[in-house]
């Protein structure tokens, strides 16, 4: 099997080169692989050699290259290869020599033939799926051959969408079946079908795939639309090969799962519906190809009915019908192709007189149409007889099926007549259509197929026997059915006659009958498809509008809502907590007061219009937190929090003055404020609730109580300080470094153009009387000067500096430390800057920020190295108590040096912030104003 497939693949790859070299004659070469396949199949049939092989492909996934051909597969292989070869032969003259894209087309057609061959011979569900999707893909390339036409594009898209959807559904079904059965080998699966569990769902999915491929209602719309394809493609894909894949799959699985009633009933009723709808619709079509396409839809419905009746007799009839349909329908399509090319139209309202100008063509078409209508002695008649016979007996359902099939046959007869008279008749008053000559290579294939339809009939009973190995796999015998040229059974014959007569009547009724069918348009699945596509598009658009507005608050709201939802779910879904959390409302009176204040700022925040007020409110929460720390008895934390809050507020304000005061008026919020508030409340409750729960989950003693002892022993009475500069001094060192890097990063963003680190000094002679210096050089214009602030700044600057040094020294023993000291020193600079403007900085602290930070970092690192040099471990602290006259005992320690480093670093940072976000922004604003 593999060599054949490789042959197809090679031919497909070489096709463009061949077409370039030989023009359209290349199709003769391309016909060779299918012809070889045909010869191989015949050889296998005649000698009875079993075709079976297995090679591993991806054993980890249970996927193997398994091929096995039983009677059903051989039948399909014969059709696929034989008609494939004929169609390629036909192509060699059908296309004009210089047609564009012929190479690609030829390659796709041969590749399709190969994929189809693989599909019908595969004995592995996944392998079958692989070939299945490949046929979809190649058919897409073939349908879209004419890229210029919008209809072609739409048809290609529709065909691909529908069949890909079906294919994916089928894949899921296959996976479920395979997992349930423990094997993906079709032969083993059919021999030992799994049951129960996921099998019904799997079957439904597989059936969806099969029905979509075979254009059974509700998937029938894509097939007529695909008639945009060149005619040889329609003959091959849409009559003989691809659309049969679905039917083939049903036929393949039916012996195993035909017993599953829902599956059978669904398939049979959909098949019947398709048969009738398709037939009726064919009566209204004026385009010969579309007429045949709806005929094909109808016949596919018929085949589905037969195979899913799941009895031996029906299967036999189905197998016969499968062959007969391929012969007559391919032939008819090819005839239409000739007519289309020779007459320049395929509209049956325009054609006239072809019977006289092309008598042989007419004869071929008549023979094929007769087989389609089920006239004796054609093969189609034998198959139809067998079908009627097999559906006899049984209950009400079976009888209803029979009635439907007879109605469908009547419609078939009617549109067969319509096709013949439309294509070859000579309506009065219409000029005969001029006809160009057509080549023998185009005429031969349809003629051969039509003749086979007649010649096969005498061998019908042999055909039936050949199919025995397949039909025998069905458990239910059903009504006995025979395949013969003339079975002579009275009831089927009567039914055939009735169908033919009714068909003739329907045709005679002409437009009236067709109009009756128009009522059925309401269940036109093509419209449903487009409505679905449009609906999905619209829904997608609306959904995008809702969830993807590009608005950050909206995204956050979704995330918060989900979190709240999941948390609520966790609460409801989770186990009931045995003991409720213990909630202590407060221990000191300050706590509730501060709490209420904090809550108030949160409530106010949504009403704030300007950025700066928001920043203030956020700052207030920080101050409130500091107060809470204080109330809890940690003054160190409280002070740090307070200082940091102040500094960040300053930074905020400095930055915010470059932004609009009030955010630009945005459109009305989509979500009502009440909902937002509720969401915020719920999120807050979740976060706070989780906190309460977490506090209650404590089962060990807090580690803080253990700290006091060691801290005391190391000589530090301030635990926080001991932690920062001793116990986790490494971390502090790292944090200091990060602080420096961050500051440099922020600053360098602001100082993009001016890469100078020098502080801006006041311009020489700037309102300074010679010989005098001021420690406050107020460079602000007189109107903007704030006298009170200037006075206060003068008064507190030195005091603040003193306080900062005090904090630095006391850090080891009580509240304070290098960080707090550094910030206080920094704030003193802030005060000077706010009072004096941008030149003031250089006067207040003549040392550059870089020097301060570098020195600070150097000190910290040096302390670490000192420890290493003397004590062996980095950051090891040394201390000594010195008695200083007047002051008393002073505890000196290298920790102090370390703290000094932090102090300097922080001071440098503040200075740098002021220099960049303050002074430099001032300068830029001034420059812009100028």
């Amino acid at each position: 099997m593999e060599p054949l497939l490789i042959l197809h693949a090679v031919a497909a790859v070489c096709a463009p080169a061949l077409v370039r070299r030989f023009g359209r004659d290349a199709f003769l070469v391309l016909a060779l692989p299918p012809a070889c396949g045909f010869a191989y199949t015949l050889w296998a049939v005649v000698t009875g050699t079993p075709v079976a092989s297995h090679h591993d492909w991806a054993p980890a996934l249970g996927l193997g290259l398994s091929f096995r051909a039983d009677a059903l597969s051989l039948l399909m292989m014969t059709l696929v290869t034989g008609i494939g070869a004929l169609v390629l032969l036909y192509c060699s003259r059908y296309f004009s020599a210089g047609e564009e894209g012929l190479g690609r087309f030829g390659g796709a057609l041969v590749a399709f033939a190969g994929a189809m061959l693989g599909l019908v011979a595969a004995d592995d569900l996944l392998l079958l799926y692989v070939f299945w999707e490949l046929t979809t893909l190649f058919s897409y390339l073939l349908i879209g051959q004419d890229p210029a036409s919008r209809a072609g594009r739409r048809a290609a898209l529709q065909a691909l969408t529908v069949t890909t959807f079906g294919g994916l559904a089928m894949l899921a079904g296959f996976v479920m079946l395979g997992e349930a059965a423990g094997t993906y080998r079709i032969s083993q699966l059919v021999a030992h079908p799994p049951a129960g569990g996921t099998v019904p769902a799997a079957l439904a999915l597989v059936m969806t795939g099969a029905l979509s491929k075979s254009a059974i209602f509700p998937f029938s719309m894509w097939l007529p639309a695909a008639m945009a394809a060149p005619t040889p493609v329609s003959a091959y894909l849409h009559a003989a090969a691809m659309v049969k894949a679905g039917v083939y799959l049903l036929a393949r699985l039916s012996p195993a799962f035909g017993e599953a009633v829902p599956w059978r009933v669904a398939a049979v009723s959909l098949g019947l519906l398709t048969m009738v709808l398709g037939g009726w619709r064919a009566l209204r079509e004026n385009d010969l190809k579309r007429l045949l396409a709806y005929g094909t839809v109808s016949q596919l419905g018929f085949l589905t009915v037969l195979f899913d009746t799941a009895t031996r007799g029906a299967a036999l009839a189905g197998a016969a019908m499968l062959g007969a349909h391929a012969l007559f329908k391919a032939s008819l399509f090819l005839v239409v192709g000739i007519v289309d090319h020779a007459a320049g139209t395929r509209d049956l309202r325009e054609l006239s007189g072809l019977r006289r100008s092309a008598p042989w063509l007419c004869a071929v078409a008549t023979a094929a149409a007769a087989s389609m209508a089920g006239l004796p002695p054609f093969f189609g008649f034998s198959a139809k007889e067998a079908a009627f016979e097999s559906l006899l007996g049984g209950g009400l359902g079976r009888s209803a099926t029979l009635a439907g099939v007879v109605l469908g046959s009547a419609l078939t007869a009617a549109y067969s007549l319509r096709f013949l008279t439309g294509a070859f008749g000579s309506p009065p008053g219409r000029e005969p259509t001029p006809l160009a000559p057509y080549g023998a290579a185009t005429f031969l294939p349809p003629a051969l197929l039509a003749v086979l339809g007649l010649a096969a009939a005498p061998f019908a009973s042999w055909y039936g026997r050949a199919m025995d190995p397949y039909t025998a796999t069905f458990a239910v015998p059903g009504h006995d059915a025979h395949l013969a040229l003339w079975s002579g059974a009275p009831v089927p014959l009567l039914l055939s006659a009735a169908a033919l007569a009714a068909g003739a009547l329907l045709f005679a009724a002409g437009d009236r009958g067709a109009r009756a069918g128009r009522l059925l348009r309401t269940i036109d699945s093509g419209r449903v498809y487009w409505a679905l596509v449009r609906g999905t598009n619209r829904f997608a658009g609306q959904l995008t509008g809702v969830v993807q507005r590009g608005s950050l608050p909206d995204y956050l709201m979704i995330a918060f809502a989900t979190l709240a939802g999941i948390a609520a779910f966790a609460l409801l879904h989770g186990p009931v907590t045995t003991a409720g959390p213990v909630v202590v409302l407060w221990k000191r009176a300050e706590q509730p007061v501060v709490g209420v204040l904090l809550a108030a700022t949160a409530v106010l925040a949504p009403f704030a219009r300007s950025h700066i007020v928001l920043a203030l409110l956020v700052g207030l929460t920080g101050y409130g937190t500091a107060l809470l720390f204080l109330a809890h008895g940690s003054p160190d934390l409280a002070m740090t929090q307070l200082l940091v809050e102040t500094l960040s507020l300053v930074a905020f304000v400095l930055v915010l003055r470059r932004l609009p005061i009030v955010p630009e008026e945005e459109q009305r919020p989509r979500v009502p404020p009440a909902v937002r508030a509720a969401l915020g409340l719920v999120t807050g409750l979740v976060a706070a609730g989780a906190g309460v729960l977490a506090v209650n989950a404590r089962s060990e003693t807090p580690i803080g109580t253990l700290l006091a002892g060691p801290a005391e022993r190391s000589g530090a009475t301030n635990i926080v300080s001991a932690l920062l500069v001793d116990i986790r001094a490494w971390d502090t060192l790292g944090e200091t470094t990060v602080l420096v890097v961050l500051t440099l990063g922020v600053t360098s963003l602001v100082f993009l153009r001016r890469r100078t680190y020098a502080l801006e000094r006041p311009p020489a002679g700037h309102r300074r009387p010679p010989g005098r210096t001021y420690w406050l050089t107020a460079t602000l214009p007189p109107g903007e000067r704030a006298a009170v602030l200037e006075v206060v700044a003068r008064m507190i600057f030195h005091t603040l500096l003193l306080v900062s040094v005090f904090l630095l020294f006391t850090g080891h023993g009580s509240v304070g430390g290098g960080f707090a000291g550094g910030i206080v020193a920094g704030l003193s600079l802030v005060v000077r800057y706010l009072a004096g403007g941008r030149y003031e900085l250089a006067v207040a602290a003549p040392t550059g920020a870089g020097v301060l930070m570098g020195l600070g970092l150097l000190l910290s690192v040096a302390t670490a190295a000192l420890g290493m040099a003397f004590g062996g471990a980095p950051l090891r602290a040394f201390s000594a108590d010195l008695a200083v006259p007047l002051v008393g005992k002073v505890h000196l320690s290298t920790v102090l040096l370390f703290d000094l480093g932090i102090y300097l670093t922080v001071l440098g940072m503040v200075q740098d912030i002021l220099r960049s976000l303050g002074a430099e922004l001032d300068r830029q604003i001034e420059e812009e104003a100028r």
Partner: protein
Amino acid sequence: MNGTIQAPTIEYALLSPMLIVFGAAIIGVLIEAFAPRYLRKSIHMPLTLLALLGAFATTILGAANGLPTSASAMGAVAVDGPALFVWGIILILAFVSVLLINDDEQFVAQAAAVPGSSDEEEAVRSGYAQTEVYPLLLFAVGGMLLFSSANDLLAMFVGLEVMSLPLYLLCGLARRRRLLSQEASVKYFLLGAFSSAFFLYGMALVYGYTGTVSLRGIGDALGAGSGQETLLLIGTAMLGVGLLFKIGAAPFQAWKPDVYQGAPTAVTALMASTVLVAAFGAVLRVFWVALGGLEWNWQPVMWGIAILTMVVGAILAITQTDIKRMLAYSSVAHAGFLLTGVIATGAAAQNAKALSAILFYLAAYGFTTVGAFAVVTMVRDAGGEAGHLSRWAGLGKRSPFLAGVFAFFLLAFAGIPLTSGFFGKYAVFAAAVSGGAVPLVVVGVVSSAIAAFFYVRVIVLMFFNDPAADGPSIAVPTVGTSAVVALAAAATVVLGVFPQPVLDLADQAASALFIR
């Protein structure tokens, strides 16, 4: 200092991939500081590639030496089969992405210059280049390695941040449409910060319940129970939100399209492939190793999220008119398919099956994604990349080869046989079915079909529409870009036709599951 602290034992050999990447990143920073401007790129490029190659080689060496049976670095990092496999994928994909990044047209001359200002003009005129891209990328990759192999929540958080922070920056460095790029960066940063906060809070709550941050410890503590299950559940939810944000699962998918669109395409390629891989490594660790005993509680939620992710990804992609946004939603949908595998837990054999499927899927998807974005970088018009889909009309006529390759990638996304996507999808679906998640598979199929619809629509647009008169031109690709496209296409074909070696590898990696 009290007493002596036992020096931790570090398995340097096992951890060497991470160490190499981080080391090279630091060297990269030094190059930025000391090398002259005109030399930087020519030093960075080989350094970065060599570091990634070296890390990959040591990863393979580590795997060849036999998998360790216990966690490394005092239990902080678990270098187990899945970790090594994930590392391998991340390193190869990063290597490929670097080839793509080596294209001056992608990155801004000076990121700090205000768009449209004279600063920017000056920076462009003087031929500046933001070569920090390379060390940033290395840091991000190092973070990914740590993130995907962390064996305790703290290390995982460090990995998460080291991975994310450079990416936030990289997103804002696009040379064209800079405002869009900066907006993407800010959005990614803010939302990412929120997700990190969720993760951290969740971690604290889980710690509150279990008293440990080690994944194994958490798993063990779950068995003990302590009467505070609500705390644990909320903690789990928050951890989950943080992690799901990173993989872009709905309803936390909102950042993906905005960020993918705004970021320089090379960075998008890196994010779309490697971040997803790393994040799934972490998701699996947290939910399987740590919270495995809580399966019955998180699975229902995860079901909902997987379904939502698949459907939202597929549906929203339909309306997209920008190729990068479309690929972003497709990435959301694929994350949903992968979540299907995460849910399919069961006995050890089932877990190994699901894990192997996820690993294979990640490898297959990663390559195809990088390739697809590489193609996107090549279709350009006057304003940079031609992102709007209408500009892609008729590309098949102008440049049939490129359009063909792109169509092939799209088919791989759709899961058509003979592409890597098919085996990935099949493996995950098979694992989900045997894990009893049949409804998920059905939803997966439906959303795959919807996804196929928009992939196919692009193919139709490229091949069956007439090209616009002033359509985009195809940039002459740099050697790097063509190599990326060729590599990705080759990987997609090879994984689609001969998947067995990689499947075996994934099976081996998954066989022993995660070490604890």
